[in-house]
């Protein structure tokens, strides 16, 4: 785990990286629904050999699950440079020291998954900015991480929305 991902939600907000938004449970659940579809689409893309497409859609699914969790806490990343990383960091921050998350999903395991999802940005950057080919191993990893996030984060989100 890197120090950046230990940053508490309050500090991310104070640093100007996050903005407060009204909590809208319908939006949160729609994002999770989209992420589940993205997982299916990623598998289908992998089957036809479109590894770049499969990775991108799996990565986007990871980002949407994390965004859904952040929105459940009433925050989202400001739309400036690095807002993807901030979205992942915000999701990780909601899990840190979160008693409900620990009870429901295994706090550390969920946080590790968010970290793994955050690290996918390196693959994405290589593909988008340096035209690197995405390997089957990277696609499988992204799909696995998305599956893990879809199992771990929605219960935490639902518990938050129920408050």
């Amino acid at each position, binding site marked *: 785990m890197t120090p950046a991902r230990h940053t508490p939600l309050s500090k991310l907000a104070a640093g100007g990286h996050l903005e407060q938004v009204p909590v809208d449970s319908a939006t949160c659940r729609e994002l999770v629904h989209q992420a589940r579809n993205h997982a299916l689409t990623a598998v289908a893309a992998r089957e036809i050999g479109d590894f770049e497409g499969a990775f991108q859609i799996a990565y986007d699914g990871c980002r949407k699950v994390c965004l859904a969790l952040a929105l459940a806490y009433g925050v989202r990343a400001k739309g400036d440079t690095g807002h993807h990383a901030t979205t992942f960091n915000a999701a990780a921050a909601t899990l840190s020291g979160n008693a409900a998350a620990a009870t429901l999903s295994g706090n550390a395991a969920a946080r590790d998954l968010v970290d793994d999802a955050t*690290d996918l940005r*390196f693959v994405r*950057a290589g593909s988008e900015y340096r035209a690197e080919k995405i*390997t089957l191993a990277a696609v499988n*990893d992204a799909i696995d991480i998305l599956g893990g996030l879809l199992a771990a984060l929605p219960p935490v989100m639902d518990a938050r929305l129920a408050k």
Partner: protein
Amino acid sequence: MAGPPLDTVLGPCVIRLTYYKVCHVYSAAPALLPVFRSEAQARILAALLLDPSREASIADLAGLGGIRPPNALREVNRLIGAGLLKDRRVGRTRLVSADVSSPYHQPLVQILARSFGPVLVIGDELAAVPGIEQALIFGSWATRFLGQPGPQPGDVDVLVIGAPPGRDLRRANARMEDALHIPVQITTVSSSEWAAAESGFLREVQTKPSITLDLTGSRQHR
């Protein structure tokens, strides 16, 4: 499949470099960041300030700086006098380390991590990732580091040769960026791709200046 030795592939262009063994002239101000008195001084400061738990003898620091021990002694005395380093004696050996109480410690750490840290930090991080046969820094950062003047690099380009586990390598990549505060762009190729060098990218890496990283983990396990 193991490729040919790096020296064979790169021929006379390769400049082999590890953090403790350098083959370069370090008496001049460093081209990478010419605000330090000398390259040797910058390397000694980087080695000690970027790892405050580290204690090194004068002989070790001479090796780090690529200078003779009497010159290393003068550099160390100057830095101790400025409050940036401190020393203690164990028997007849004088051990030198960073003085973290200096008000200049943290700002210098930031400068050194950005300018001289990558060789140390990236080498250490990659040493802990399995499946890496070789790794090197190339591109503008390597060019500046090896003494060619030019604009400050915006990132550090790293080529990893081997088949490391993706998650391990990406996590190491994240730790590098956290430590160095500069983007680290890692490209991975297999040893057979490296040996074949069929792409223009690999041919360019093999013919331009690069820094071969020490993956023995000697700094971690000293």
